[in-house]
């Protein structure tokens, strides 16, 4: 593609550097691939310039010439820079995809962009007037011209530029197709007029970017007037000043700004137009006038009548046929060039025909080559043009030489006419010589580059030449010299080689290679029209207009976003390539299928149903799939273990550790590798996730349906990306963590199934509602556990009697005091407990929970601990707080509790106290039943574990009298039975010593007393274990002394019921 300004700048410097990850790299990398989203487009641009000389009514004429193309006079100028009728289809057309929203050139070629430059919209001849304009902030002029243009162009065209600098005014409007593709409009005014900066002379310059890629430049300038050489110099200086001063805002594409402001010369296409004020040199004004008058009054006056009728002009226009061969006047002289827009030419012709040429002669009637006809208008123009200052200066490289082009001038000088006449040159005193003041120049990036290259080559050639001269080599002797250069003839300072004398037609021969584009390259601009509008008579200048067709590059937004997305992905990947990265495979996935973290979806571990206390393990295989070692760690999540505030409490149920991958596969000891591990590329290790709910409070919360068992673990790869692992489990409802009132409502089948059916019905978890029917007087779990404990205790005793290696642990708390349970390790017992809970929750007989080979001792410990767990789990205990408070209040009337250190000795008091307590509990019948049931069972178990043989009892009874004799405390006895009970119940720590001292009974007595003491010790210890579990109440409050007293009373209540009558 020829024109890719913004792009071409950086083509060579921008290398997609994937490894660098600066914020611009996406933009830069995408930019490097721009050819994938930039497509050739075509646009037609109409440029008009007019010095309106502050004449009234000029705005009324605007539409006619600028938009409608009227006012052309085929007689007095040609509209066709080339019209050999060649096909419109151009090579570029073949290459440009039709689907990439090309600019349609339908209906004679829709204009994509109208650009109008006016001069002298205000009369400003003195600085004071300029000041007036400044201070009046008069925008009525702008408003007037905007209105005039908007009225002329289609209503959906959008304003792009509206800028005024004193008399200079620049307006641009874009078609609805083009407007959205325009960005970076930057306009700058350069005043070069009076005092060097005021704006009555100068330029308004606008830079726009088309389709994110192509920079267009429009310069509307009014240069110094005047025929004298002094003014010529000023014009040259002013043009240079404009180039030097115009700076445009840095281009911003996709939010990324270029660093530098742009200037004239950075653009892809430039258009410089306006009243440049260049005159005809070395020709007396009157000669020019006379020469032209020949034509304006001339002999081919075939359309005189029509013209007159329409315009009622004084001048008598002459119809001149401008031949197609007039193209030798085109500075851009390429004989092979094909016109691009035949429809356009037709349109112009049609417009002209519609206008006023109904009776114009058929062009074929004219001599085929008026150029060769010395009498033709074109011949006359051609004879004048070599005297045109602008053309001369361009050749001399003094102004507009840096690649600027102009179309062939086939129209009369545009200045100066009497206002109101088609072709009457200034008839005033001054009789200003006619000249082509109003011009439209243009240039492509290629044009400028070509010029630069040429200058460089010339410079090099000159240097080489000088060197050779210095070495004394004769120029003629060496044919290698690239450039024939004669410094003698080059008196100029600038490196102009052999500038041809600008004589007529000379440029046709050697000027051609100076300016014409390389034929091998496609010319990206085509001048479709360059004409004056002779019949516009409201100003002393004729307006001049051009239509250009540009082939330019523009971003196709859809393609661009696609490339952008790709680049973003590639950058992402590239960035990840050098970074540590892992792949996670959850290969122990309960659902079987291996899950892989290839995508961005988080890894997922589902433990399935989780029951209380059971430990669930899931193993993730972590593989380092990157090229560098990866340091891994799980991000520690702040875990609160404060269980006080209900829902908010987060209880840790998930633990993680890293182990070698082999270890996780088998059951060998897995070595915890620590919190942070480093994994080499190509290696794996395992992350073991353990899920276990051990906390009763947590269990209670889960039973209530809050919270859910869901976590997101974050596995951090240092310097890599975090991996998120979602972990979940579903809670298996259990009897642990319920209330008595819930449990008695559980029907056959167990709590798990029942709670599930409730969850299904309500679609959420929760407590068992108290409005459901009651199925049993006390929780079945309690029946089952106590029953099993009782029978198992008997088995233990039996085993102990029969088996050598089985002895009943002597610890008085056994098997209820966990610390006293030593027959198995904690894990084994826990697994038994889990089995028991499973059985309870599923309403299965407890013995079935044990494998047959498990010894009774182990079973009893598990059962006892399950009972403890069950009681601890009861949300309100067996004696709820309210009831306990009532018991507490009744303490003064309950002697057994009033002094909890030792129970009263007499059975009657004890009985009485039991009745008092049970009476209070009576208000909560189910709790009452539970209490009695539990204490009776425990009492029996204690009795089993600390038996008193008949002999012991007899001995104790037999010794009662002597014991009593020595016991002051036992003085108040009732009947003999009561006395024994009283004595026995009164036995404390010191009693054995007392008995021994008493010395009255001998060995049997000691043994009996020892057995009794053991019984009492168990009663006490078991009561201690159960007191707090059974009786609730705010023991947390108060002083430690009060708390201890409360604990003692709880224990005493239990002891009161555990102590059974001796019989």
């Amino acid at each position: 593609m020829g024109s890719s300004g913004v792009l071409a700048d950086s083509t060579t410097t921008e290398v997609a550097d994937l490894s660098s990850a600066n914020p611009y790299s996406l933009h830069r990398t995408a930019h490097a691939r721009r050819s994938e989203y930039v497509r050739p487009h075509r646009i037609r641009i109409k440029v008009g310039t007019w010095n309106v000389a502050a004449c009234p009514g000029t705005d009324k004429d605007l539409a006619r010439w600028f938009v409608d193309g009227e006012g052309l006079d085929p007689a007095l100028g040609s509209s066709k820079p080339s019209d050999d009728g060649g096909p419109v289809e151009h090579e570029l057309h073949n290459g440009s995809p039709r689907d990439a929203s090309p600019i349609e050139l339908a209906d004679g070629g829709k204009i994509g962009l109208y650009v109008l430059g006016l001069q002298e919209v205000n009369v400003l001849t003195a600085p004071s007037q300029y000041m007036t304009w400044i201070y009046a902030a008069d925008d009525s002029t702008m408003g007037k011209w905007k209105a005039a243009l908007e009225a002329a162009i289609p209503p959906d065209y959008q304003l792009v530029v509206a800028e005024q600098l004193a008399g200079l005014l620049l307006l641009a409007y874009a078609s609805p197709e083009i407007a959205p593709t325009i960005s970076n409009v930057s306009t700058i005014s350069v005043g070069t007029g009076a005092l060097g900066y005021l704006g009555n002379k100068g330029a308004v310059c606008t830079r726009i970017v088309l389709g994110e890629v192509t920079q267009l430049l429009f310069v509307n300038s009014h240069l110094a007037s005047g025929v004298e050489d002094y003014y010529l110099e000023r014009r040259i200086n002013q043009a240079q000043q404009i180039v030097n001063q115009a700076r445009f805002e840095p281009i911003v594409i996709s939010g990324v700004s270029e660093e530098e402001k742009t200037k004239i010369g950075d653009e892809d296409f430039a258009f410089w137009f306006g009243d440049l004020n260049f005159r005809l040199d070395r020709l007396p004004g009157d000669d020019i006038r006379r020469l032209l008058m020949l034509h304006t009054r001339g002999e081919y006056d075939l359309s005189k009548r029509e013209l007159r009728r329409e315009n009622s002009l004084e001048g008598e226009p002459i119809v001149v046929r401008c031949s197609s061969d007039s193209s030798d006047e085109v500075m851009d002289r390429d004989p092979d060039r094909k016109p691009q827009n035949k429809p356009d030419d037709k349109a112009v012709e049609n417009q002209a025909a519609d206008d006023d040429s109904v009776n114009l002669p058929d062009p074929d009637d004219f001599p085929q080559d008026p150029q060769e006809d010395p009498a033709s208008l074109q011949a006359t123009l051609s004879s004048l043009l070599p005297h045109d200052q602008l053309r001369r200066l361009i050749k001399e490289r003094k102004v507009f030489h840096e690649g600027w082009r102009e179309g062939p001038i086939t129209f009369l000088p545009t200045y100066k006419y009497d206002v109101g006449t088609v072709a009457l040159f200034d008839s005033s005193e001054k009789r200003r010589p006619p000249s082509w003041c109003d011009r439209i120049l243009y240039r492509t990036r290629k044009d400028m580059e070509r010029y630069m290259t040429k200058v460089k080559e010339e410079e090099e050639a000159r240097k080489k030449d000088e060197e050779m001269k210095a070495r004394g080599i004769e120029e003629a002797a060496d044919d290698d010299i690239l450039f024939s250069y004669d410094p003698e003839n080059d008196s100029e300072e600038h490196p102009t080689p052999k500038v041809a004398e600008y004589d007529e037609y000379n440029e046709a021969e050697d000027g051609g290679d100076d300016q014409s584009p390389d034929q091998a390259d496609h010319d990206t601009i085509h001048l479709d029209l360059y004409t004056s509008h002779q019949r516009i008579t409201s100003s002393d200048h004729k307006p001049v207009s051009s239509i250009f067709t540009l082939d330019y590059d523009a971003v196709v937004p859809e393609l661009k976003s696609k490339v952008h997305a790709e680049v973003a992905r590639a950058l992402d990947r590239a960035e990840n390539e050098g970074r540590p990265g892992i792949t996670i495979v959850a290969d122990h996935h309960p659902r079987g299928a291996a899950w892989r973290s290839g995508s961005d979806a988080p890894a997922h571990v589902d433990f399935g149903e989780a029951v209380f206390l059971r430990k669930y393990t899931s193993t993730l295989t972590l593989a380092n799939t990157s090229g560098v070692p990866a340091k891994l760690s799980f991000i520690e999540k702040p875990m609160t273990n404060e269980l006080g505030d209900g829902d908010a409490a987060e209880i840790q149920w998930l633990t993680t550790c890293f182990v070698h991958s082999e270890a996780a596969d088998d059951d060998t000891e897995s070595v915890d590798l620590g919190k942070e591990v480093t994994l080499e590329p190509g290696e794996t290790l395992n992350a073991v996730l353990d899920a276990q709910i051990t906390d009763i409070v947590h269990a209670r919360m889960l039973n209530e349906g809050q919270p859910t068992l869901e976590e997101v673990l974050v596995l951090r790869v240092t310097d890599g990306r975090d991996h998120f692992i979602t972990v979940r489990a579903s809670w298996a409802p259990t009897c642990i963590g319920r209330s008595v009132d819930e449990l008695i409502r559980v029907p056959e089948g167990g709590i798990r199934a029942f709670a599930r059916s409730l969850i299904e019905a309500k679609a959420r978890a929760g407590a068992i509602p108290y409005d459901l029917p009651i199925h049993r007087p006390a929780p079945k779990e309690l029946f089952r556990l106590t029953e099993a404990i009782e029978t198992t205790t008997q088995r233990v005793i039996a085993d102990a009697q029969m088996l050598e290696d089985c002895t009943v642990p002597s610890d008085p708390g056994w098997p209820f005091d966990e610390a006293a349970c030593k027959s198995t390790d904690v894990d084994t017992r826990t697994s038994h407990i889990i089995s028991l809970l499973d059985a309870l929750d599923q309403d299965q007989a407890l013995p079935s929970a044990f494998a047959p080979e498990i010894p009774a001792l182990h079973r009893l410990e598990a059962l006892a601990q399950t009972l403890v767990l069950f009681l601890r789990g009861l949300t309100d205990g067996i004696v709820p707080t309210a009831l306990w408070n009532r018991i507490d209040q009744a303490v003064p009337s309950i002697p057994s509790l009033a002094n909890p250190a030792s129970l009263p000795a007499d059975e009657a008091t004890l009985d009485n106290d039991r009745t008092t307590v049970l009476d209070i509990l009576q208000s909560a019948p189910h709790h009452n039943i539970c209490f009695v049931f539990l204490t009776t069972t425990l009492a029996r178990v204690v009795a089993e574990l600390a038996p008193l043989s008949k002999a012991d009892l007899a001995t104790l009874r037999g010794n009662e009298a002597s014991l009593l004799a020595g016991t002051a405390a036992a003085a108040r006895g009732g009947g003999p039975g009561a006395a024994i009970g009283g004595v026995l119940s009164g036995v404390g720590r010191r009693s054995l010593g007392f008995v021994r001292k008493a010395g009255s009974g001998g060995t049997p007595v000691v043994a009996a007393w020892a057995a009794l003491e053991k019984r009492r010790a168990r009663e006490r210890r078991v009561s201690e274990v159960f007191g707090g579990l059974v009786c609730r109440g705010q023991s947390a409050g108060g002083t430690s002394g009060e708390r201890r007293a409360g604990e003692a009373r709880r224990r005493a209540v239990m002891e009161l019921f555990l102590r059974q009558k001796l019989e």
Partner: protein
Amino acid sequence: MADSSAPKPSSSVKLVLLGEAAVGKSSLVLRFVNNDFQENKEPTIGAAFLTQKCNLPTRTIKFEIWDTAGQERFASLAPMYYRNAQAALVVYDLTKPTSLIKAKHWVAELQRQASPGIVIALVGNKLDLTEDGTGSGGDAEDAGGEDSGDARKISTEEAKTYAEEEGLLFFETSAKTGFNVTEVFTAIANAIPETSLKTARGPGASHAAARTEEQRVNLNGPRDPNAKEGCAC
């Protein structure tokens, strides 16, 4: 805790896939692991890792599959992935002669650098693109002849001869149709010596040297019936 699954011995086998880019390595793995195929797979970056179990009559093999990227820029990473590997799948594209050359390079490199005793399978993929590649059965379309319209560029004979010379397992597969894919992995699983399995996963994957040592010591040694490390669930 009672384990539910049958106590069939199970062991991990590290398997690496090597071969030129776009021959279908990732596609073979995808077919084996997920029984899926994607027409336009994104190229593998660095490496991919997947696992899949392979049930043999007497044991279960858990493949830890390392799928490498074929592009040259990743070639230097390959040794990290085939280190400690017990099996390798060297893949070429039946329709692309250069891919076999590349495959031979990989085989040579493995024989030189990888663990001794590594089981290598040479796999010619994209059989579906050839005349005989029906995918549903090898014997269909016998009459079709070999030449016209056939994208095959590497004859079975040529590759097979090479494989035999080098002592490689040899298969022609189609990841697209699934033809012969499971067979490759099963064959590899069967070819892994039991002795190598038992001690394959020593006390640490990073202790490659130590492991190799162990492997020698235990060569031909009786399988310890009490060894638990062979059993996974």
